[in-house]
């Protein structure tokens, strides 16, 4: 963590942030010498170079390619990507097709990225039109609320007029009352860590600082999840409203949405909303004639899963390498540019909005104290009804899968729930689980984002573990030793098993997993052992022939 870089980058600040400047420069057809940028920010050439080289999309090897096939877990399990890759290669050339991790089309697969747009499902049938630059008709995800009260999917905040009406109401409210509402609702962060949202806002409102920031973490990289994408594209005003109210409560006049570059439509939707709200003075200086000002911008992620971790996300915006920082200090006291900052996930902000509009009691009355309210659940293409659903916390998983999801199209043996770091739950265990954060954790799984990737019966688990290690090796920031080295050595073990050049030494593997779990700095390489240990526990027999006993 470099205080010097944070402070120097902070002198110029968020509007002209270094990350945006350096990524736009790399992606420009005639980039400036990075020495000039370094000089503007009073930083070293090495600072810019070190940060640039961190991101997949900014690397020459990536920029040379034209199309990118999704290599997320859901598309992999669906087995649609090999053929897709071949088709694209035949059209564009063998060296012109790369990969991207999860484009959020887990409900239809066949996902790929071309020329700034994502395509999936049957879109590949229109490849010639796509390559000609024609706009093709695309199918949307299915979404529906099954909740007692919908906080996230209703249409109470779908027009600028409604936004204005609600904002008028809350600008007059006592800030303490707003925090109390959130505390009473028992809303916990939906990004994975599960910290009480009301407490976070309260801490930050009390933190001393001449400047404060609100960050929306829209770097949804978890394979299987497209719930944030749903909110950004279909409920953008709910997300933005949550940020504005957070700004009001903590005393911040500036916020940013860090949206992953893999989601071009989300960026477009949010951008459109921000522009509209600015025109109507619902964002910007002296909102609706009050002394409250709040401006909002977007940072576009450049292909790094780790930026979903809050300290890495902050580092990224500042133009530092997106490595995970030690805590304390926590962002609420020392966040972006070392100023007090609230970092909230997309769904958390939208839920906060829903709670403020509908009342805390309605939210807290669903589920239990630690898993309260409603949650978006994403079901992939193996379900008869794939889509994103708003569901009461506490609902039996069996009901979600069989009734809401309509059962499975083909035989599945397990589900990875909660993204690549979430647990792998065998089919038979689904009957014993409810949609509840604590319940999942106590059984050795992790609900996380509540995204569901189905693993079909004939999919080899050795290959699934390989996929997980490959993912963490690829996405590890490289800072902590067990994360950088452990994920890579794990990948190598399964590379060798896949190629049949060596068997997996079981004892060493177990030691490696414990080392990563106990030793890593953050939840990327620290939690990847969770699904792997689940697989070894429940599907060890299946993998026996790939294993060898070592001492």
């Amino acid at each position, binding site marked *: *963590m470099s205080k010097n870089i944070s402070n120097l980058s902070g002198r110029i600040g968020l509007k002209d942030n270094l990350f945006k400047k350096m990524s736009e420069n790399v992606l420009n057809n005639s980039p400036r010498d990075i020495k000039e940028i370094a000089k503007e920010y009073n930083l070293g050439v090495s600072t810019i*170079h070190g940060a640039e080289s961190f991101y997949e999309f900014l690397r020459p090897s990536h920029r040379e390619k034209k199309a990118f096939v999704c290599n997320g877990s859901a598309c992999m399990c669906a087995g649609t990507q090999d053929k897709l890759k071949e088709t694209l290669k035949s059209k564009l050339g063998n060296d012109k097709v790369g990969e991207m991790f999860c484009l959020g089309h887990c409900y239809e697969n066949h996902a790929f990225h071309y020329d700034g747009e994502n395509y999936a499902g049957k879109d590949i049938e229109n490849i010639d039109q796509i390559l000609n630059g024609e706009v093709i008709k695309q199918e949307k995800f299915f979404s529906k609320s099954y909740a007692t009260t919908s906080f996230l999917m209703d249409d109470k905040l779908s027009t600028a007029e409604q936004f204005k009406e609600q904002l008028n109401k809350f600008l007059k409210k006592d800030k303490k009352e707003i925090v109390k509402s959130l505390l009473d609702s028992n809303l916990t962060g939906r990004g994975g860590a599960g910290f009480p949202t009301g407490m976070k806002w309260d801490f930050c409102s009390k933190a001393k600082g001449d400047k404060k920031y609100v960050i929306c973490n829209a770097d949804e990289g978890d394979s299987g999840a497209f719930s944030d994408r749903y909110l950004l594209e279909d409920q953008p005003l709910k997300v933005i409203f949550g940020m504005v109210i957070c700004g009001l409560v903590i005393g911040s006049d500036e916020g940013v949405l860090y949206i992953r570059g893999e989601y071009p439509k989300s960026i477009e939707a949010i951008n459109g909303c921000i522009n509209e709200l600015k025109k109507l003075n619902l964002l910007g200086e002296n909102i609706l004639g009050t002394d409250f000002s709040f401006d909002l911008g977007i940072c576009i992620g450049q292909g790094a899963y780790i930026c979903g971790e809050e300290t890495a996300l902050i580092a990224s915006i500042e133009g530092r390498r997106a490595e995970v920082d*030690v805590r304390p200090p926590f962002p609420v006291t020392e966040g972006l540019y070392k100023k007090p900052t609230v970092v909230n996930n997309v769904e958390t902000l939208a839920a906060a909005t829903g709670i403020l509009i509908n009342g805390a009691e309605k939210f807290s009355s669903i589920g239990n104290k630690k898993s309260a309210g409603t949650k978006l659940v994403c079901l992939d293409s193996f379900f008869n009804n794939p889509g994103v659903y708003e569901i009461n916390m506490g609902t039996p998983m069996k009901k979600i899968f069989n009734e809401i999801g309509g059962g499975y199209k083909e035989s599945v043996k397990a589900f990875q729930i909660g993204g690549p770091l979430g647990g792998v739950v065998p089919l038979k265990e689904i009957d014993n689980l409810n949609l509840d954060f604590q319940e999942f954790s106590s059984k050795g799984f992790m609900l996380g984002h509540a995204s569901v990737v189905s693993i079909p019966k004939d999919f080899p688990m050795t290959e699934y573990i390989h996929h997980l290690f490959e993912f963490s090796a690829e996405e590890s920031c490289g*800072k902590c*030793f067990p994360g*950088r080295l452990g994920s890579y050595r794990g990948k190598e073990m399964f590379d060798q098993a896949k190629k049949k050049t060596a068997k997996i030494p079981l004892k060493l593997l177990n030691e490696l997993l414990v080392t990563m779990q106990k*030793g890593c700095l953050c939840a990327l390489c620290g939690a990847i052992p969770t699904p792997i240990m689940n697989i070894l526990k429940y599907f060890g027999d299946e993998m026996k022939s790939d294993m060898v006993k070592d001492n």
Partner: protein
Amino acid sequence: MSSEKRKIAYIDGKPYEISANHTSILKFVKSYVGEKKVPTLCDDPNLAPYGACRVCSVEVALQKDGPTKVVASCHTPVAENQHIFTSNENLQNLRKNIVELVLTDHPMECGTCEVNNNCELQDVANDLGISDHRYNSPKQHKGIPKDTSHDYMRMNLDNCINCGRCVRACDEIQGSFVLTMSGRGFESRITTDNDMMFGDSSCVSCGACAHTCPTDAISDVFQSKSAAVDKKGKNYMFLLWSWV
């Protein structure tokens, strides 16, 4: 005299007083039970806590006989009534496994290495009783050409363990931004400026990087980190550095 109540935390069962300069568990432990009780690799007391190597992990309970949690001692604050355990079988295994991983990407040529017997990695590995690794044909970064382009400094990245101390010293001590980590994950490595040769870079030859480097990855033409070099000369060099 402070009127504040004395605050106590426990190291391996014994009570010690927490003072204002105990900004981390590591500093607390080191001040009472010695430098070597908890191994470190990425830590340098002159630099901000970084939390990369994780070999300084300890177990902490919030009350006597309470459940313990593994934390990196270098960036975890010490708090009243904490029970800190510096060593047990689990911790030793964790440290051994981490150092073993480090050795999977290290040349292991101590005998011919300039800093033989004056190397933090060697010390930590020896103390833990680790001299080899069990991984099958691990990919290594071996064979990176030595950078001898600089008038004073030497860079030999085969020996680098990616602790980031040089980068942080360059930034935090010298206020220069010459060194950086580049790339990501397993492929991340130390470089100067925009991948320049050391001698062509904007380096001001302060020597802070070589001074903090725990191995032979960055050293100098005076071989001042060599255990074989006359101690007097070595001290003289460090004195010179502090003047620059």
